């Protein structure tokens, strides 16, 4: 039996690990590499890193960010390289991937999968190009959605700034047809709020697609994981903050899921 995946997502900005709230507040919570050992010892199912740097380079002057190759001191690529040497688990990297070359370098440094978002919305065919080059299994299309005043959901690009005026359902289906291997659906409204997943949003995307869907956004407690997995048909549950802020959150979440009858490692 395939096991349900529980996936920590790490958001990076200017080289720091950040806590994100509603896509516009980003609190610096430290060194992204310091987390690696923890996740390794917790035997996590998978790790997703998303770089949300908008402008400015990486601040690697700090001594505590040691170990990064000098050739990659100003980019997420340095982080990929270090993480891939230590973590023998599936690694997904996203953020700022605009071209086949951007994807190539990430795979070359050790990424197993990439997530794409804004560039796929600007150029949907980008999904097909990547799928042809690297295989569908390596391409995760990430969708950021928000509930609009009229009660419908809409997809946003550029880290939640631009309304694309397409429903997450339509976009997910299109992404699947273009060759996406997985969908990562994130709720902008729930991001960092600890109010639980937007079940309706997740369920709507699961219902129209045949590929695995990873739910993200809003986890406040371990029971939120059960809820999204049991009620929406999502293949995996992802979260950021809870794993950064709570001691032993990952093993405890796994234990909670196991106690509630879910098949987890």
């Amino acid at each position: 039996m395939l096991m349900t995946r529980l996936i920590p997502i790490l958001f990076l900005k200017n080289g720091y690990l950040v806590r994100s709230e509603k896509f516009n507040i980003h609190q610096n919570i430290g060194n992204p590499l310091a987390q690696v050992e923890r996740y390794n010892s917790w035997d996590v199912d998978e790790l997703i890193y998303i770089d949300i740097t908008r402008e400015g380079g990486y601040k690697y002057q700090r001594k505590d960010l040691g170990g990064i190759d000098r050739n990659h001191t100003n980019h997420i690529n340095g982080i990929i390289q270090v993480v891939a040497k230590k973590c023998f688990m599936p690694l997904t990297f996203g953020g700022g991937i605009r071209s086949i070359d951007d994807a190539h370098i990430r795979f070359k440094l050790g990424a197993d999968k990439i997530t794409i978002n804004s560039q796929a919305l600007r150029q949907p065919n980008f999904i097909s190009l990547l799928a042809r080059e690297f295989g569908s299994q390596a391409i995760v299309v990430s969708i950021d959605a928000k509930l609009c005043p009229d009660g419908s959901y809409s997809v946003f690009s550029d880290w939640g700034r631009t309304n694309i005026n397409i429903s997450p359902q339509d976009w997910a289906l299109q992404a699947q047809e273009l060759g996406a291997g997985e969908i990562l659906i994130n709720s902008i409204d729930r991001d960092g709020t600890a109010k639980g997943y937007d079940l309706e949003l997740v369920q709507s995307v699961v219902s129209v697609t045949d590929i695995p869907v990873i739910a993200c956004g809003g986890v406040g407690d371990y029971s939120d994981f059960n809820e999204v997995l049991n009620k929406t048909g999502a293949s995996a549950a992802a979260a950021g903050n809870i794993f950064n802020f709570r001691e032993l959150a990952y093993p405890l979440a796994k234990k909670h899921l196991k106690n509630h009858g879910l098949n987890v490692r």
Partner: protein
Amino acid sequence: MDIRVGIIDIGISNITSVLNAFLYLGCNVKTVRISKEVSNFTHLVLPGVGSFPNGMENLIINGFDEEISNEVEKGKPIFGLCLGMQLFAEFGEEFKPTNGLGLIEGHISRIDTGESGLRLPHIGWNQVTFKKNSVITAGVPESSNYYFVHSYSYSNPNEPYVVGICDYSTEVVAFIEQDNIFGAQFHPEKSQANGLLLLKNFTKVSG
């Protein structure tokens, strides 16, 4: 014996993770980009992601098909990972019928999940049951978890070379072994301790 592991690089795979895993295990390992150099190694690894036709095309263009067949015939151990394992078959059905290396009698077809509602690709951790214990599976629990990402697999789980299977609404071929030929449908290099053990054991297989 002096072990030299050669990871065959046909330009389409993410071989970094495989290389990193062998380096972590302290092995003498190199990537092989020139087919003639295959003979310099004691152990060969054929990783692979992407589609079957693309994988075969790249093997042939680079002249690896003949070199691999020659070395394997001489008894050199080879370990195929994911698509690499599939390329050992006679032919694959992905996109268009394509001949494989023909080292293993069998063909590769799309997993049939029937009415189960299970999604493809088959992505995630699944429990593999090993039917047989050998050098490569020594110390591996009879039932252990590995990371899979694929939609196609060997079509007949009852063949004698199938030594590991997993359940995904149907029996999926997870591990094969035939003489000096080994293959994992999952990614040992991404399956933490259990996977690293298989890679380590592979280097102990004598040629």
